[in-house]
């Protein structure tokens, strides 16, 4: 691993900016007369949703699975990423013969509203000014993200989903979708999620946002107009965030106190330790593919997420009358979205006698465990989906739709 220094960060990648305006994805475009009504009361129009699909929708349209991505994820869930050239972020779970089998299911993944990979966000062009929105972009919520997903499904003429799956912020969207659109979600898999963002998590997000806004290149949010990008601030935000996605055990197992390409400490502030070098690398690669303002907006959406308050303190009311089959998954070493958060949702679901499974996976990989190839996790998803497919009358490979 090289040892990048924050001062050496590259200028804005043209390829990444191109993804905002002309993404290498399918795009559903909604015109001025088809606004997205936001929780803030504002209306966003026109707006676009960039999305990827895999597999074939069957003739009855009963085999659609929607994947909700996490904070810094995007729609490139199971294909090569157009900016980084790396394989999709959830290929451990999704693909031919995988637990989410694209030979059997029609898989859709859309970039969230407020994102930076082609769905309308703060780096998109504001029609009235012809300039990037920047901080003129309205504050969005997880509810708004889900509302946008449903507009996409309407556009694709998919009446209901066989399953909706997501981890972390994706799991929040899964819960929101299952609660607000009960008759459009047959099964739901919220992973490493919570019904509300915790105080500690809001605190970490605030650190990240302050790091971005403290970077002079942020330019009050107008960095695109100035031809700049707050790489340093965004990299620091990513470094702080990345620590929360791992666990003490995993960091210790991976790096311990090992030194980076040297025999002794240098009595300076170079990256002496491997863990420092690793974090710098994480920050460095992140800024190549992510927009700083999007980071502000999407973290804010997570902070605002509170289904408990929405239901006046009784989460169970959100799920009253649900027929959706739920499978919740948490990970033992996840301290960002600990098991208790999932258990609170399970309790609420039990209170309305919902059909719910709940699995806690033993792992030292922390919050990010859901992105790794964990055999027990894969077995859980396979088992749950097969059983749900059976009750929904889905069998074998998808037939071509008419």
């Amino acid at each position, binding site marked *: 691993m090289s040892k990048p220094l924050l001062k050496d960060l590259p200028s804005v990648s043209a390829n990444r900016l191109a993804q905002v305006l002309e993404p290498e994805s399918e795009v559903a475009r909604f015109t001025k007369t088809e606004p997205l009504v936001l929780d803030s009361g504002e209306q966003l129009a026109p707006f676009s949703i960039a999305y990827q699909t895999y597999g074939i929708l069957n003739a009855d349209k009963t085999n659609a699975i929607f994947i909700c991505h996490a904070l810094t994820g995007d729609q490139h869930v199971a294909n090569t990423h157009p900016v980084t050239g790396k394989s999709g972020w959830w290929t451990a779970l999704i693909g031919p013969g995988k637990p989410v089998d694209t030979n059997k299911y029609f898989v859709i993944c859309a970039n969230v509203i407020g994102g930076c990979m082609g769905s309308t966000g703060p780096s998109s062009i504001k029609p009235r000014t012809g300039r990037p929105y920047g901080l003129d972009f309205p504050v969005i919520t997880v509810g708004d993200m889900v509302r946008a997903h449903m507009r996409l499904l309407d556009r694709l003429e998919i009446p209901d989903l066989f399953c909706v799956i997501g981890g972390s912020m994706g799991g929040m969207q899964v819960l929101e979708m299952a609660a607000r659109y009960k008759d459009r979600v047959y099964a739901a898999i919220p992973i490493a999620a919570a019904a509300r963002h915790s105080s500690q998590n809001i605190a970490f997000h605030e650190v990240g946002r302050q790091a971005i806004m403290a970077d002079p290149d942020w330019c009050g949010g107008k960095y695109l107009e100035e031809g700049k990008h707050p790489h340093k601030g965004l990299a620091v935000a990513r470094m702080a965030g990345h620590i929360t996605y791992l666990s003490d055990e995993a960091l210790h197992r991976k790096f311990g106190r090992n030194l980076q390409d040297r025999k002794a400490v240098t009595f300076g502030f170079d990256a002496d330790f491997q863990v420092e070098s690793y974090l710098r690398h994480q920050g460095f690669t992140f800024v190549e593919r992510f927009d700083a303002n999007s980071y502000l907006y999407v973290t804010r959406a997570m902070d605002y997420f509170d289904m408990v308050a929405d239901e006046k303190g009784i989460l169970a009311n959100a799920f009253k009358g649900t027929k959706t089959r739920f499978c919740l998954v948490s990970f033992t070493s996840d301290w960002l979205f600990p098991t208790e958060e999932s258990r609170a949702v399970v309790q609420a679901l039990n209170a309305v006698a919902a059909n719910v499974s709940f699995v806690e996976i033993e792992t030292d990989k922390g919050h990010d465990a859901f992105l790794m190839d964990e055999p027990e996790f894969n077995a859980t998803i396979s088992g*749950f989906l097969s059983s749900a497919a059976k009750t929904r009358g889905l069998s074998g490979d998808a037939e071509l739709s008419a």
Partner: protein
Amino acid sequence: MDAQIQNTARVDLLLISEMVEAGSRVLDIGCGDGTLLQILAETRDVDARGVEISQLGVNQCVARGLSVVQGDADSDLVNYPDAAFDYAILSQTIQATHRPRHVLEQLLRIGRHAIVSFPNFGHWKIRGQVMLQGRMPMTTNLPNQWYDTPNIHFCTIKDFVALCDEIDAKVEQAVALNAMGQKLGFSAPLFLQNLVGEQAVFLLSR
């Protein structure tokens, strides 16, 4: 709840599944690796859910496609609404709960019926071991030493009937099984069932 108990409990599981009306809603508390849930789903076409205390058991169940959550019979049944299920089942588990009376009351609250099976501590072999050896009994059904058994609240069939009386539970059906897994007639006198029955299965309602 306990793998060793589960293995020898097959007969009572079949008996329980016969008591369950086809197409009903069932909650199996202490469902272990999901054997009963699987039988119920396959043979009685029920909407079957489970609660299991061991995470390993839960994960096995979910990987088999069963709807199971991790939970504790003592503390988690209060979360369920009244009459949410047609049957709330507690097989070979009540003797391992901290508050059997509370658990039984909860079963009858959340299920229109409760089905409870348990090892009968009044069985002659057990009585004999206590009387002749002066030691806590160990049998093939109850293979653990007193200090490492999960079973902290043993009862006899008579004790269980008394508890049902106390909480006004109606006994709709009671079956004792002998060591061979054969049913003793419902008409057999209680003292005989309590003596010869190695396990008992009760179908209760409020």
